[in-house]
């Protein structure tokens, strides 16, 4: 039986959205992550409108981190393309590169926290202000997700050694790529948001 032909014949669209279920579920997971940050940034705006808001300079290292994460998105995409073309060595190389860039970003974010402490912007305790606490929460939550993405990347990396990542088996690396771009985009959004609302 030829399923494809069958679908054409029947006037009944069987699967309007024929995405792989796992991939689809993964996208839904991204929606939940997005909602967490939508909630946090909305809370930020609402709270800021109330006044009593400490203003301070954003750490300038954020700029460098942003560049790093954009580059890492490029290398991630290259890894994906390489896997699609079955050039497995290249895939591994780019995956490794991406995870190094990801770690560099995380280290950079950590330095940003150091910079904040230096100008007496604390997460909690005496003298802390929600404006600073929010910054820690936003970067911290993003960082946590990025850590999970790096682990995901390592999983893909490990799988690539077992010949499980190639043009016929793209699901995992595809999800990983999506996740990585998503988190990169999320950071750019957060950074832009902070620049605008500061």
């Amino acid at each position, binding site marked *: 039986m030829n399923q494809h032909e*069958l679908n054409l*014949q029947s006037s009944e669209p*069987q699967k309007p959205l024929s995405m792989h279920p796992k991939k689809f579920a993964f996208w*839904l*997971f991204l929606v939940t992550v997005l909602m967490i940050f939508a*909630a946090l940034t909305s*809370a930020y705006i609402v709270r800021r409108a109330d006044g*009593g808001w400490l203003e301070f300079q954003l750490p300038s290292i954020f700029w460098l981190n942003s560049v790093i994460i954009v580059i890492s998105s490029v290398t991630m995409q290259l890894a994906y393309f390489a896997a699609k073309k079955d050039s497995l060595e290249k895939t591994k190389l780019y995956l490794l590169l991406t995870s190094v860039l990801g770690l560099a970003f995380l280290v950079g974010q950590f330095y940003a926290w150091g910079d904040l402490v230096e100008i007496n912007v604390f997460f909690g305790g005496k003298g*802390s202000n929600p404006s600073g606490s929010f910054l820690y929460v936003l970067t911290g939550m993003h960082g946590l997700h990025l850590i999970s993405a790096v682990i995901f990347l390592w999983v893909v990396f490990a799988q690539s050694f077992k010949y499980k990542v190639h043009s016929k088996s793209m699901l995992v690396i595809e999800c990983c790529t999506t996740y990585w771009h998503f988190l990169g985009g999320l950071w750019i959004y957060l950074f832009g948001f902070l620049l605008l609302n500061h």
Partner: protein
Amino acid sequence: MSVAESHLHDHHDDHEHDHHDLPWIKKYVFSEDHKVIAKQYLISGIIWAIIGGGLSLLFRLQLAYPDANFEWLKPILGGWIQNGKLDPEFYLALVTMHGTIMVFFVLTAGLSGTFSNFLIPLQIGARDMASGFLNMLSYWFFFVSGVIMLISLFIETGPAGGGWTVYPPLSALPQAISGSGLGMTLWLISMALFIVSTLLGGLNYITTVINLRTKGMSFLRMPLTIWAFFITAIIGLLSFPVLFSAALLLIFDRTFGTSFFLSDIYIAGQALSFEGGSPVLFQHLFWFLGHPEVYIVLLPALGITSEIVATNSRKPIFGYKAMIGSMLAIAFLSFIVWAHHMFISGMNPFLGSIFMFLTLIIAVPSAVKAFNYITTLWRGNIIFTPAMLFSIGLVSFFISGGLTGIVLGNSAADIQLHDTYFVVAHFHIVMGSASFFGMLAGVYHWFPKMFGRMMDDKLGYLHFWITFIGVYMVFFPMHYIGIAGFPRRYYSFTGFDFTQSFTDLSQIITIAAIVTFAAQFIFLFNFLFSIFKGRRATENPWRSNTLEWTTPVEPGHGNWPGAIPTVYRWAYDYSKPGAEDDFIPQNVPFSETKGSNFPHENEQMVAEAGITHGK
């Protein structure tokens, strides 16, 4: 994985579904089969309902008989009874736990968890959920979350005591009441796990509905149950992460000394170091989940009711598309009305007017649904099964509770009514009782498919009438108490002169509550007895149209022993003129029902020929 894939590719490799060799623990405990998981949710839900209901009796006793000696409760409550009196802080903890358990564990997990899991694959024609593993994970997250909540009931400082809405500053400061100590921490941990569980479940429901429908099951042929579960899952997916964020910020306030929700607080004359936070911010975040949550609780019940009302009226559901439309409208609106819970929080009154306007709009789709139920019943050949009675009961509650919602939605009226028993009456009727009735209706209706046996009708009728009358006896008088101004969550009715006169009303409520609670054991007995000793069911005892009734009496792993049926029509061809029978299941092609086809259906027959030919 295997399920999804075999479904996508072909239906023939059924050897994959012979899981008879699975070890016991994978079959009944860590099962990935949606039907087993559904039963796990159901049993857990029932256990939680008994616990949650039992807690409510304790505080009802206190409200009705504030002067009584409760020494006899000491064996259960231990130190919370001092000199025959219930500890006032423990009273608050009881209220909090009752609310949390009922809203989240019973009516969210127990209801959606049971019926979305059980019915989605069966009614859309899938072998299982998109990911059995995530589904299993979802249940066990719920289980652990429940265990933690249960433990919190027994710790020395007592469980969380700030109300199910856990407003800071009360919930944020362990110094405030004993219920804001360890109990609150456990509450937050438990809820965080619960959110993960709900999200995993919802993810699965949505993915399954979109990707795994059988051939011919277009969106506009899906039973309304599926639409309801689907929309519920989407609402959950969008709103629960927001609660997660709120809980996270609350955790930081509690443990790391941040001031998201706290500002300028003195406790016992001591200034705390919190500065610049806003408790109203928490309310915004909480109700952004909280209001959608009430529909997360109600919509599945409404979906179940649609199905049962149509089947037992032997009539097509009235306004199928209007039902879908109104559910979508309700879902959309539910995200933009949250501040009606905050009219007197100090929010800008102009904003209040906007939220009032949006809130009142919800009455429109709600009324559409109510009318459609009534018009479906109208002149139908009604068969009063227990499930049908409970569904009609739901419609009754939906209307009477919805009306008081409109009263509360007026921000001016709400100044008087907010945080009184009027609100308690409103939401217990429209959310608590209506959803609970939906859940019971669902159990009575799908019991034959779940356990292969029938529940006893007579006990069902008895259960229904006591519960139905009992619910009104409990909650109707609360409206008066509320209008008179008695605030909710107060320890004692005798504390103030103006409330003294309500003590007898209060006693009636408590007695009715005890009777209603006791009546649930009729159900429990019926349920447990019928699992083992009930009359054997047939494949389709209610002569219903949806796909689950085409499976064997007790569907095995993979649901259909042979190929998955193809769907040719909507789910509501009841009493179609010209048809041989008064129902035509969804998998019957138009070519077999030439006598009853409408002209456009004859056209579809041609298309059908393609499908049948292809086979």
